[in-house]
């Protein structure tokens, strides 16, 4: 599976897995959005520890999830990004949209 999701109280954590490109982003998006819709979390954590590659489709994925969680008053957190993924995210200014801890 491309994403493993855990729910703990009002926090959803999505552990993304593998390479994020236009081909894989669609499946990840659907699974995360289904979990958000069902649980209406106040915080969505996207965990990148097992992501080995990401292009701008990953930026679209993060920006899109921000738009999904905002109406619930939720916060977006990004965590465990490698230097490569951090570089792609900084280019898009995602560090201003979401809380990034690494």
């Amino acid at each position, binding site marked *: 599976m491309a994403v493993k999701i855990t729910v703990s109280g009002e926090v959803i954590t999505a552990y993304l897995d593998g*390479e994020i*490109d*236009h*081909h894989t*982003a*669609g499946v990840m*998006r659907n699974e995360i959005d289904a979990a958000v819709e069902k649980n209406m979390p106040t915080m969505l954590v996207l965990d990148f520890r097992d992501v080995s*590659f*990401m*292009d*701008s*489709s990953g*930026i*679209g*994925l993060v*920006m*899109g999830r921000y738009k999904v969680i905002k109406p619930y008053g939720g916060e977006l957190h990004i965590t465990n990004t490698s*230097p*490569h993924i951090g*570089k*792609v995210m900084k*280019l*898009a200014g995602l560090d201003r949209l979401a809380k990034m801890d690494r």
Partner: protein
Amino acid sequence: MKDEIKIVIPSRSQNESFARVAVGAFVARLDPTLEELNDIKTAVSEAVTNCIVHAYRDTIGKIYITVSAEGETVKIRIRDYGCGIEDIDKAKQPLFTTGGEERAGLGFAVMESFTDKLRVRSTVGKGTTVTMQKKISVKDDTKK
């Protein structure tokens, strides 16, 4: 003689990873840093995805990839015979997209900042050619 490879792939999204991995394997022989290698793979992924998502939006067409190395410089050309781009300057602007909600409009921005040189040529109805160039750093320990 300069080293050159050519790859032709159908514009199916599952080929995005093949394209960047194949180019990455070629570039790896120049002993790039991990960052340089990731930069190139990301830029290739952007250009190939654009052929799939935009150029051949409702069809499957062929994507032509040429990679060459001359000295420490890698040159990558990615060509499609798809719909073409009306206004290249506009298309290159960060956040501009005709691809809808889930596209960030940052593909060209990535190609531009992750390589040393980006050139885009396009004719509406005929297709688009993206050429990128990047110099691979020479490491100290390889000095004789």
